[in-house]
């Protein structure tokens, strides 16, 4: 748990464990896998079978959810139905206060007054996103995430054609920026981050009409296409880190099962936060079942791509009730 938080903050994931560090079950599975003959052919065959009928189940569900949620904000104002009032930074859902955790945090740090409505809104959202898995907000709600996914597709396509190259950053950048933005809010007395948050800018642009601020968002997307893959979500956004902390103990998780895994690494290749999938590397899983760390956005892309169903959504504790 502590180790996974450190990885989220930017530490390099632990090295491959030694023989003694495996659980007995994991050790025997690792040993069995070492002796399998004709592995290459087997992987190729299994992948070919997957590609015959590629499923984008989770991606489709996620995109639909993201679009519906943002559309609810827009339509609710357009037609004055008062279903979801406000924007992603703060809203009333059927009259109940909701406040984005990071926006509320910035306001409290800058304003230095505890506001009762904001505490209520924050509490509601805190419980909701703790249950649903913290960074689930990122991939299932945040409109910038969706645009960024398209930018990433273009980036990867251009990279394949050798037109661009990914210039990765150190993952600790986000942690440093998180602290800097918190300090800036406290010292300056302004919600400094909010003025450049693409999440807020996009949400307001959709609901209240576009503005110049969209140029900033466009600039970020251009940077992500030509320079650094998924730069904002991976290395900058404090919202992601806030929700990452919230989801660290969340019941909704992606879990990994070692048994059938072929360790070919398709999941890591498309994951926005591949450091959470270290255990899928050959010989890295210490246990037969391993939960994916808090930086995971629960986007489900690894579940869609996995040819052996080794990655799955799980609701912790649900087994006990069923």
């Amino acid at each position: 748990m502590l180790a996974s938080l450190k990885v989220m903050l930017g530490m390099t994931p632990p090295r491959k464990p030694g023989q003694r560090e495996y659980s007995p079950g994991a050790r025997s599975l690792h040993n069995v896998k070492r002796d399998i003959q004709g592995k290459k052919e087997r992987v190729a065959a299994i992948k070919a079978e997957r590609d015959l009928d590629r499923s984008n189940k989770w991606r489709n569900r996620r995109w639909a959810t993201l679009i519906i949620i943002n559309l609810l904000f827009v339509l609710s104002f357009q037609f004055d139905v008062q279903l979801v009032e406000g924007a992603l930074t703060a809203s009333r859902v059927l009259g109940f206060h909701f406040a984005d955790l990071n926006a509320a945090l910035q306001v409290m740090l800058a304003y230095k007054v505890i506001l009762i409505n904001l505490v209520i809104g924050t509490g509601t959202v805190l419980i909701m996103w703790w249950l649903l898995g913290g960074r689930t907000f990122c991939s299932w709600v945040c409109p910038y995430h969706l645009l960024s996914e398209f930018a990433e597709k273009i980036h990867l396509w251009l990279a394949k054609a050798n037109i661009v190259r990914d210039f990765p950053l150190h993952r600790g950048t986000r942690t440093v920026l998180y602290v800097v933005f918190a300090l800036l809010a406290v010292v300056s007395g302004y919600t400094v981050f909010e003025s450049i948050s693409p999440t807020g800018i996009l949400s307001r642009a959709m609901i209240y009409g576009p503005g110049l601020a969209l140029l900033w968002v466009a600039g970020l997307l251009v940077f992500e296409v030509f320079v650094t893959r998924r730069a904002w979500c991976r290395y900058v956004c404090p919202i992601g880190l806030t929700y990452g902390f919230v989801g660290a103990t969340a019941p909704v998780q992606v879990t990994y099962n070692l048994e059938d895994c072929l360790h070919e690494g398709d999941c890591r290749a498309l994951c926005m936060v591949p450091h959470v999938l270290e255990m899928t590397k050959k010989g890295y899983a210490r246990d037969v079942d391993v939960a994916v760390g808090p930086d995971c956005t629960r986007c489900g892309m690894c579940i869609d791509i996995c040819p052996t169903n080794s990655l799955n959504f799980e609701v912790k504790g649900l087994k006990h009730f069923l």
Partner: protein
Amino acid sequence: MAEENTPKKPSGLSRMQRRNRRTFLRSIAVGVTVIGASVLGFFPVLKGWTKRLRPPGAIHEDEFLAACIKCGQCVQVCPVEAIKLGDLDEGFGVGVPFIQARDQACDFSCDAVQCILACPTGALSHDINKKEEVHMGLARVSRLDACLAQLGKGVKGAAREQGFMGRLRYAEIDRWVPIKVNDHPYDLDICDLCERVCPIEGAIVVKTVGTGADRFGYPEVMEKCVGCGVCEMICPTDPPAIVIDIRETWKAEA
């Protein structure tokens, strides 16, 4: 050892180390750029480039920018759609509500100060319960020489130029539905529109003097003025003869 193998690289660092160093420097560059971009928001605020009339109940400007969570719920409840949100040129004022009184002033159509009730953070202070307690600014007759009343002129027909979209609630027409100002023609011998449409009783008075053709008037702003800007919106002269001094407080004339 490294020097022997890689004579071209005098730094003596391995490939890995050099790559890590580049990543590190790149991270610093991006980090500094992002913080720089966010801090740019200071300038419009410090320089007062875009001084804005804030919605009713707005607390002190600096605190207002801090407390506002930029959600626009105030925008959504306003029956005359007077409230707009700030754009990039306003720095930290991005997404913060303001009112462009000349285009559409707050006429308190909602009565209960809905924007204040909608505000989730108290940036619009919940201490205010009725329109008379609001303080947005203070009206000032800025161009007395252009004032129609002062010139002894009246108003026939629409108050504002053709195509003006601003709306007001006229209690005598419909208590709850605001209509376009220009759909409500006037026929006045001496213009007293600012007093006539003012939502706060006794905030502005147009006194008339003289008789017959020499009759003229002059508007006087009183202490009760809350700075809502309806007078600025209705004023038929262009630019308006009366404007709101944002966040100005009333001082008795010496």
